[in-house]
């Protein structure tokens, strides 16, 4: 009975989504206040209904109601409570419902804050979000209903994939979805602005915090996912240019371009149609990402064919969203041409160049991700694009972005001169060369040009941030007052840029100086990587709560002093009989020691295959991600985003203005 209630609530939510999409939308077009007034209550009601549907599904998981097909497939009564709750988004149907829940949550938050926006704008935005919600609820109800039952109910469920039984993996999908769905809001604002044919600097100020929140969530989702892959998959990789990863990385790239382009639109009223286009692209890529990953199209066109209804629905919805929004853009963009001129050497130009680069990088990733699918769909044979393609293209295109990142904030709006810039940037540049050279000499291992160059880039960014802070504090009496006067948005930018510098250091140094050995070891064997000597002691069988494990013991020595004991595990989970590699990792800021077990190679000698990795500075990759998140969060709290709008100035059709 209870799951049916959930199903019913979701249907009601669909009905409310129709109301939320159509009535405020008509009000927005006809400028009728009474119709627009429906937006807020409809958004809140839809949120309440979707939340109850989601809550009911979670309840089925908590009480182990395996008559619900979805719960039977993805949960198990032996599963700890926390993973029964996170297991709700452990597979397709539930994660789609989570998508809908996050969308309605963002919409409800926006509706609650509607005083910040003119009444017509918020009605328009909520209406667009309503249309997106209709699409997703229909998708859920017709192709991926999580409330379906089957009788007789199995005694126990099929269990959650053990790879997903991990705290980071529990929060990774919601973060990613918050990012994907977050870009729906800049998109909705863009559509509303296109329909109105009017877009002012206030518009950019409304959109910026939403774009930032989406960007922060997506950054968090990607960082957590990469970190998880590193420690959980057991072979020490952290980014594979896998289609699933690319699907989340593409909206991140254009989302990054969007938050920068929005800055230009807000400060200078320029690049308006470019900003709108980036908002449309970011959300379209988010849709592409969710759908491709969730429909299984990415693994193969044939997997797609295995469930044609989902695939067709996806393509139609994606086509509608992209088609309508780009059509509207083509029809209206000329009204949003840039009126404010800027010269070749100006901050506008720097930001535009950066976002063009980010867009090109996105296109190269898109090419590598979609080309195999398109070729296969056209009957051109089966191919895949090797990861070297991505790194070979990504790195050279990213270098100018990082270089410009340090210069951009120095350039004045509208026009600046190259000579002033050179004067300001000379010292940071010289210092960057010195610092990078000193650090590369201090690093263990041979001097390496790639490492030196990466350090140069990182210090270039860091020094430029420091110099800007000094410039900002030039004319203040006291340090404290000066620091307080700087807006939070500026701090956010500086911190996020430093985060990029961290990640650059982590990527370059870990890939240059890592030492990896896959070895065959018997008790007493040892290997040396860097300054560390790994001695293989033994492997013992132990019992875990819902698995059996072979637990290895490896002693690590440095300069013949025993440093630590590592215990990598090989687990077999009881229900699905999945084998899992649990690496043993010792982390600090300078290096990771990473040990994982392969398989038993010889039962007589007790030999095992073992992976031994020494990875310097790898932690910096994710540290940089977390610093970027921090920067984004600080920028969101900037006080200019809290300004409320005077509603009296909005022209509406007088006949229908609500009397209240």
């Amino acid at each position, binding site marked *: 009975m209870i799951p049916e209630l959930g199903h019913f609530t979701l249907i009601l939510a669909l009905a409310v989504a129709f109301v939320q999409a159509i009535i405020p939308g008509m009000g927005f077009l006809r400028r009728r206040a009474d119709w627009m007034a429906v937006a807020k209550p409809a958004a809140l009601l839809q949120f309440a209904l979707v939340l109850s549907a989601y809550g009911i599904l979670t309840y089925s998981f908590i009480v182990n109601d395996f008559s619900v097909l979805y719960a039977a497939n993805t949960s198990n009564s032996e599963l700890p409570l926390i993973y029964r709750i996170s297991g709700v988004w452990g597979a397709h149907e539930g994660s789609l419902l989570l998508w809908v829940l996050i969308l309605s949550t963002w919409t409800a938050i926006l509706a609650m804050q509607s005083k910040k926006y003119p009444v017509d704008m918020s009605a328009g935005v909520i209406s667009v979000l309503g249309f997106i919600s209709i699409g997703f609820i229909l998708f859920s109800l017709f192709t991926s209903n999580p409330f379906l039952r089957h009788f007789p109910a199995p005694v126990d469920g099929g269990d959650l*994939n053990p790879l997903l039984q991990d705290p980071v993996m529990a929060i990774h999908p919601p973060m990613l979805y918050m990012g994907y769905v977050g870009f729906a809001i800049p998109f909705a604002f863009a559509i509303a602005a296109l329909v109105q044919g009017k877009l002012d600097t206030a518009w950019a100020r409304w959109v910026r915090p939403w774009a930032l929140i989406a960007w922060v969530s997506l950054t968090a989702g990607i960082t957590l996912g990469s970190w998880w892959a590193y420690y959980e998959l057991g072979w020490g990789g952290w980014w594979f240019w896998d289609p699933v990863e690319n699907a989340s990385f593409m909206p991140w790239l254009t989302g990054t371009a969007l938050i920068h382009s929005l800055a230009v639109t807000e400060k200078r009223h320029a690049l308006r149609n470019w900003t709108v286009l980036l908002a449309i692209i970011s959300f379209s890529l988010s849709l592409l990402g969710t759908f491709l990953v969730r429909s299984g199209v990415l693994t193969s066109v044939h*997997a797609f064919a*295995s469930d044609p209804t989902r695939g067709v629905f996806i393509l139609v919805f994606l086509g509608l969203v992209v088609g309508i929004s780009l059509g509207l853009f083509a029809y209206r963009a000329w009204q949003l041409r840039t009126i404010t001129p800027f010269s070749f050497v100006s901050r506008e130009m720097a930001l535009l160049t950066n976002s063009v680069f980010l867009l090109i990088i996105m296109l190269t990733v898109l090419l590598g991700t979609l080309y195999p699918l398109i070729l296969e769909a056209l009957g051109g044979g*089966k191919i895949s694009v090797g*990861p070297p393609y991505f790194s070979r*293209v990504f790195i050279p295109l990213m270098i100018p972005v990082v270089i410009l990142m340090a210069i951009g904030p120095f350039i004045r709006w509208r026009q600046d001169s190259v000579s002033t810039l050179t004067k300001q940037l000379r010292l940071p540049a010289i210092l960057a060369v010195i610092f990078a050279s000193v650090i590369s000499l201090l690093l263990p291992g041979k001097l390496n040009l790639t490492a030196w160059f990466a350090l140069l880039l990182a210090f270039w960014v860091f020094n430029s941030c420091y110099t800007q802070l000094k410039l900002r504090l030039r004319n203040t009496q006291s340090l404290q007052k000066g620091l307080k006067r700087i807006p939070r948005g500026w701090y956010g930018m500086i911190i996020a840029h430093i985060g990029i510098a961290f990640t650059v250091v982590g990527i370059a140094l870990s890939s240059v100086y890592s030492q990896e050995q896959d070895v065959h070891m018997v008790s007493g064997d040892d290997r040396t990587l860097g300054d560390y000597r790994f001695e293989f002691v033994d492997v013992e069988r132990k019992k875990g709560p819902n698995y059996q494990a072979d637990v290895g013991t490896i002693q690590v020595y440095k300069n013949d002093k025993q440093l630590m004991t590592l215990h990598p595990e090989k687990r077999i989970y009881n229900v*699905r009989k999945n084998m899992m590699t649990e690496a043993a990792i010792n982390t600090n800021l300078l290096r990771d020691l990473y040990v994982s077990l392969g398989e038993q190679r*010889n039962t007589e000698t007790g030999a095992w295959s073992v992976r031994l990795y020494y990875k310097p500075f790898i932690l910096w990759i994710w540290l940089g991600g977390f610093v970027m998140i921090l920067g984004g969060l600080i920028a969101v709290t900037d006080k200019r985003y809290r300004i409320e709008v005077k509603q009296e100035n909005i022209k509406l059709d007088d006949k229908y203005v609500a009397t209240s």
Partner: protein
Amino acid sequence: MTPRKKRITIVCAIIAGMGIAATLILTAFEKNLLYFYSPTQIMNGEAPKERSFRIGGLVLENSVKKNPESLEISFILTDTVNQIEVSYEGILPDLFREGQGIVANGKLFPNNVFIAEQVLAKHDENYMPPEVAQALQEAGAEMPENHIPPQ
């Protein structure tokens, strides 16, 4: 420079830059394309000799041979009609086992042994790599009973 000339210079620079970028991207792209061949296609001599490619099929039962002293391993990959010997040195994925569908990247050597640089098995034991499924179908094999199409 007049503004007009300046604009033309900028546009030319952008076009030149994009042209160079596009050339580099497409060269890198072409170099890193991995084509897929089934054991039958390889036996028919369709697979390239110099270039890396992907191969897929089922690991033949009782064909896995491990060197007890090192990480060398060899096994036979089959699409149920033709077979290819695959040799690999390293640690295999957790889901590698006999009877399982796998995909490997590597090169074919003149003695018709495929030297794998990487062996991939998916994270679900019921999952069959789609390339493998199709290769089996084309070879005219009955689908194994445990095959559940991926979601």
